[in-house]
């Protein structure tokens, strides 16, 4: 909407406000009670406000999912403990509990079968408050019990998980994917500083059973180990934006797992209109425009077997706060780590989310239709046609074809003088990458080598054994994640050069990506399970080791012939 259009809209809204103002100071609905709440230009009294919010919620629910359903589905409510999700739980309860006379008279099926509530405990990421030992936090500030008791108050079944459980092999699609992924760079360490070229990231699947010697069947990893791993990864993120984004991916991965475990085919999130508007701008800024429709729409069917709905998408955060206040709903105070990071980091350290937050709320103060305008505009976006199998290993979102090529073309990372040296490495990565198949079969196919991924990079396969075979990670990522991972501290990663010394590469990489990432990588490469993946590499490794030269020749054969033809 351009500025010239915006202004008449404002006056219309103001006019409407004026019309309503016949009963100045009184509720615009009942016109008898004194108004206590203003929502944009409308004034309400408490009872009328509650009715209005409830009907807003019902409308959104009906739009997300038609009422006339044959088989009622189970729904999982994502409950963080903040006002929005707290309101979601309460509104769902009001919606779902019929007055007894209606429930007995009509033989209508319930629209939602079972309502479950899930909670992710992030207390391990909270900074220790003054005078508190770091070890005490997990126990004393855990939000799990409080969330459980709130859910119990509604008689809903409760599912809880701690954020560090993202490192548990159990929290994957196969529920026992015992491997993590480490990242290594394609450039040696000393070149990282000098070469402006963004290094190619390679992933290495490492079975967790090999690294943890404990033999009991009980949890392979202790809680503290998982927390350390998570902290190591977040610590390797050099910007607050990267940190928040990675955490958000873990959160959504866990939520989907929780929903699937609870036999729920619908996952309801408590995103308010304000939050969605902030999210829209933020996602655009961090390069996640491709998956934006899925991450902000009222209904997203991206995740297989689990629809994601946002029934509070039309409610402003102000309305939800007021709603919680009026109903005296119990909130969990320290419910997310981000808030804590904001409080504890210095004022000048700001993430993109924080900046957009300020931008939107600041604008909304002067122009109360900002949030609605942003949301309405983004609601027109249609989700991309990508297949769920080809999801990004990190964010589980859709991946656009030719991401790396595109990024290379639009990014200037080297000073003009260095171009000679980088073009050769460019060509090198390009060959490697295109034979991997960037993300879908039609990716920039200049090299139609039909060889299996492992064989193309002979350097990798010859120097490693089955447990530490590296695969290209960058080429599997979506644009947003590829961009985000540039904020990782590369110096803490092992480089491909170092990897010849295996023991060193295993220990030198200071952080690991959780099992669900490793699982997706293996799936994206076309293997059904970790075993299958392992076997293939045991077979493949000796074969390529026989004659790397021959292998290289096969890889570039097409180009050789092409150049011969030209000469003749």
């Amino acid at each position: 909407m351009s500025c010239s259009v915006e202004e008449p809209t404002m006056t219309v809204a103001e006019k409407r406000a004026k019309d309503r103002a016949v009963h100045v100071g009184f509720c615009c609905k009942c016109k008898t009670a004194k108004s206590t709440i203003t929502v944009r230009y409308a004034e309400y009294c408490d009872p009328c406000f509650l009715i209005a919010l409830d009907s807003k919620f019902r409308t959104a629910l009906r739009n997300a999912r038609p009422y006339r359903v044959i088989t009622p589905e189970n729904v999982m409510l994502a409950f963080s403990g903040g006002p929005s999700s707290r309101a979601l739980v309460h509104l769902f309860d009001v919606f779902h509990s019929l007055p007894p006379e209606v429930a007995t008279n009509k033989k209508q099926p319930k629209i939602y079968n079972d309502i479950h509530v899930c909670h992710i405990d992030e207390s391990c990421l909270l900074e220790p408050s003054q005078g508190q030992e770091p070890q005490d936090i997990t126990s004393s500030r855990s939000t799990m019990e409080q969330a459980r008791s709130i859910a119990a108050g509604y008689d809903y079944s409760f599912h809880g998980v701690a954020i560090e459980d993202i490192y548990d092999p159990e929290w994957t699609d196969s529920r026992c994917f015992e491997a993590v992924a480490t990242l290594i760079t394609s450039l040696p360490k000393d070149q990282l500083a000098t070469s402006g070229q963004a290094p190619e990231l390679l992933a290495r699947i490492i079975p967790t059973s090999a690294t943890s010697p404990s033999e009991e069947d009980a949890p392979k990893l202790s809680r503290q180990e998982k927390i350390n791993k998570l902290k190591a990864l977040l610590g390797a993120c050099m910007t607050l934006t990267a940190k928040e984004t990675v955490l958000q991916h873990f959160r959504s991965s866990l939520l989907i797992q929780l929903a699937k475990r609870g036999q729920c085919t619908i996952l309801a999130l408590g995103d308010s209109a304000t939050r969605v508007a902030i999210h829209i701008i933020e996602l655009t800024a961090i390069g996640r425009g491709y998956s934006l429709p899925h991450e902000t729409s009222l209904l997203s069917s991206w995740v297989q077997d689990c629809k994601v709905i946002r029934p509070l998408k039309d409610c402003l955060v102000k309305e939800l706060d007021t709603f919680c206040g009026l109903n005296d709903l119990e909130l969990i105070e320290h419910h997310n780590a981000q808030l804590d990071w904001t409080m504890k980091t210095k004022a000048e350290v700001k993430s993109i989310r924080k900046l957009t937050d300020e931008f939107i709320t600041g604008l909304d103060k002067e122009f109360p239709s900002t949030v609605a305008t942003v949301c309405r505009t983004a609601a027109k976006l249609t989700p991309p046609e990508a297949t769920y199998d080809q999801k990004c290993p990190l964010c589980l979102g859709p991946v656009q074809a030719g991401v790396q090529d595109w990024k290379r073309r639009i990014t200037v990372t080297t000073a003009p003088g260095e171009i000679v040296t980088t073009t050769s490495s460019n060509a090198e990565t390009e060959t490697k990458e295109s034979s991997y198949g960037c993300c879908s079969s039609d990716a920039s196919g200049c090299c139609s080598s039909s060889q299996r991924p492992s064989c193309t990079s002979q350097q990798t396969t010859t120097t490693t054994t089955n447990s530490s075979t590296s695969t290209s990670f960058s080429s599997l990522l979506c644009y947003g994640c590829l961009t985000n991972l540039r904020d990782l501290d590369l110096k803490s990663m092992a480089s491909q050069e170092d990897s010849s010394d295996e023991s060193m590469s295993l220990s030198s990489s200071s952080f690991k990506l959780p099992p669900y990432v490793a699982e997706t990588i293996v799936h994206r490469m076309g293997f059904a399970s970790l075993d299958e993946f392992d076997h293939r590499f045991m077979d493949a490794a000796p074969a390529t080791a026989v004659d790397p030269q021959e292998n290289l020749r096969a890889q570039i054969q097409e180009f050789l012939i092409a150049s011969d033809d030209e000469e003749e």
Partner: protein
Amino acid sequence: MSQSNTTLRIELQFSGGMELLFDNQKTIHAKVPAFFPLDDSAEEKHAATIRDLISWTASNLLKERPELFIGADGSVRSGILVLVNGADWELEGELDYELEDRDEIVFISTLHGG
């Protein structure tokens, strides 16, 4: 000007993360001067308004990070809801609302995630 020494009993409540700025206190019973400016030499004094309350709170009660509480023009930061005796302050004249004894002022931060 004997009145200038009197104070108003105001109940301040903080939630939605605001309490973190006030040493985790959710409720503060404050005795707020009834007339501003506080400087005795000032010629004209006016009854305390929310504008005065905000700056008074910031200098007397706030423990950390003033930029998360106070915004431009001496108001609270955008994204903070203010309720005066349970009603939205926009309906009460916002910054110019004159405080009365035993008023209940609620500050809710909407800058939370969830």
